């Protein structure tokens, strides 16, 4: 088959994009290991000391612990709230369902800043801003709708007759959820959890707006470190960024074991 210009163009553009990407990442990684690097092709010496210093100076252990706690709390709560909601939305047609659907779609469609600022204001009013609870609450806003959207197709593909059969065997609603639906939904719940985890760890705006000094997640302290650069060497910020990317990459690799890459984005079927 004769390759047409468009094919060459596509691959060419892709390779150019990739080369730049490699350069961008490479520059950061190189700098994080550089003794010092000013105006030359390569640094004039390599060292791993910046990682240790960044770890200590930015108190990354604490930050990682906070990140982990926030992410896990968001995952657990959003699954507990989102799965039952998705179930009711998938199984029943009731008056007002359209409105509820829209309400669960909006937090995904809205820029986080638009509801983040009023939400931060409200949290300040209730003295929740700056606390871990406030950060978790803010991160739940896009997480719960995301779980609902991810779970709905999984629930729809379970035959309602199976639930009827369980009922006929004497199972009550709780038993149907724990013994029949939950095991069948495990793949879906796993996918949704991992995706929420990745998104929460990477969520900047909402955490930034609501976090205090003790409730910062990794992204936010990274941003703060970068904006207050000058006090500390650039290499420390870069090594912290590499740590962040490394942990995200780890999460992504784990995620891709369980979910199809296209699920990383969303399982939006038909909004509106």
């Amino acid at each position, binding site marked *: 088959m004769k390759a047409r210009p468009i*094919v060459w163009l596509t*691959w060419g553009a892709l390779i150019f*994009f*990739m080369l730049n990407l490699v*350069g*961008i*990442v*490479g520059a*950061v990684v190189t700098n994080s290991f550089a003794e010092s690097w000013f*105006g030359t*092709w390569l640094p004039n010496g390599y060292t791993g000391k910046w990682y240790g210093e960044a770890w200590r100076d930015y108190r990354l252990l604490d930050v990682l612990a906070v990140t982990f706690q926030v992410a896990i709390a968001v995952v657990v709560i959003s699954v507990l*709230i*989102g799965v*039952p*909601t998705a*179930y*009711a*939305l998938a*199984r*029943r*047609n*009731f*008056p007002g369902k359209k409105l*509820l659907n829209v*309400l*669960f779609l*909006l937090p995904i*469609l*809205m*820029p986080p*800043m*638009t*509801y983040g*600022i*009023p*939400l931060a*204001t*409200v949290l300040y009013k209730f003295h929740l801003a700056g606390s871990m609870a406030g950060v978790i*609450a803010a991160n*739940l*806003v896009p997480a719960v709708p995301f779980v609902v959207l991810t779970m709905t197709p999984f629930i729809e593909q379970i035959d309602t007759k199976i639930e009827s059969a369980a009922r006929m065997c004497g199972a009550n609603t709780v038993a149907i959820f724990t013994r029949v639906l939950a095991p069948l939904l495990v793949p879906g719940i796993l996918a949704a959890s991992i995706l929420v985890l990745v998104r929460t760890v*990477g969520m*900047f*705006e909402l955490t930034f*707006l609501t976090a205090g000094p003790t409730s910062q997640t990794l992204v936010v302290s*990274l*941003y703060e470190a*970068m904006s207050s650069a000058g006090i500390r060497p650039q290499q420390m910020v870069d090594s912290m*960024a590499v740590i962040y*990317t490394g942990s995200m990459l780890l*999460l*992504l690799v784990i995620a*891709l074991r369980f979910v199809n*890459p*296209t699920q*990383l*984005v*969303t399982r*939006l079927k038909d*909004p509106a």
Partner: protein
Amino acid sequence: MTALPSLRDQRSLERASLKHRLAEKGVDRVLWLLVPGAVFVVLLFVYPFLYGLQLSFQPKGGGNPFQNYITFFSDEYSAETVWITLRLGLPAALFNVLASIPIAFRMRGRFRGKRALTTLLVVPITLGTVLTAEGLLAFFGPTGWFNRIWIALGADEPAKLTHNYWGVLFSLVITGFPFAFLLTLSYLSGIDPTLEQAAATLGASKRQRFRTITMPLLAPGLAVTFCLSFVLAFSVFPSAVMVGNPAGETHVMSIAAYETALRDNDFAMGSAIAMLMALVMLIVIGVVLIWRTTLYRGATGGKG
């Protein structure tokens, strides 16, 4: 049998309890499951949003409830943020969607290394804005690798690609492209390939098949992809600060809203800017989705 007294019918109709009539409309105990979700969305989304809305009509200095909005539009520096944000968001979203079509097309079907390539394209999701920003500053900076090559190729002076519009646009492409690509890919793999084969047997060329079969089926998905990419690009905040020129050429709405609300402590004005942001957002999405309703949106024959 048909002529049984209708009196009995009457009686049994009356006996149909309220519970049964509600169940008929889909209202039964299952709806209790919605309570946590509904409480959540009202408490953490609807209420703050409405609170912000009413706060935006209570300007800090009192007086005209529309004062915040008037101030926003009469001050050129803040009014311009709308245009600045759109000028970044629309091209970034458009580029990401358009670029992902041919690439997603190449990724259909099976070939060696497909999984590796998909993963490679998805990796930028993990970079995060800070590493991207640091990287852009270092790589595209005046003494970065890119400009060294650029000058080695014969340019007179280094290209200025950071701390301006271009830096932010690059950052938006790097972070936004994987999303657009994955979405497009999932919509594209939802289209049954036998449709194209059928068109081929009817004598349609590659180009004709793309134009008459694939594109019309893909277009609604692309509309959604565009909307989501636009949301992502429109929200731009950290990269506009770090690789842009936050006081000038990349003074986007997010920065204006954030600085007003949390730095200047004028929550009313900050909320007003946030509301305007939501409004612009909804207008763009609304236009796209209205255009989308004119497209065919039925089954695409694939596995979905």
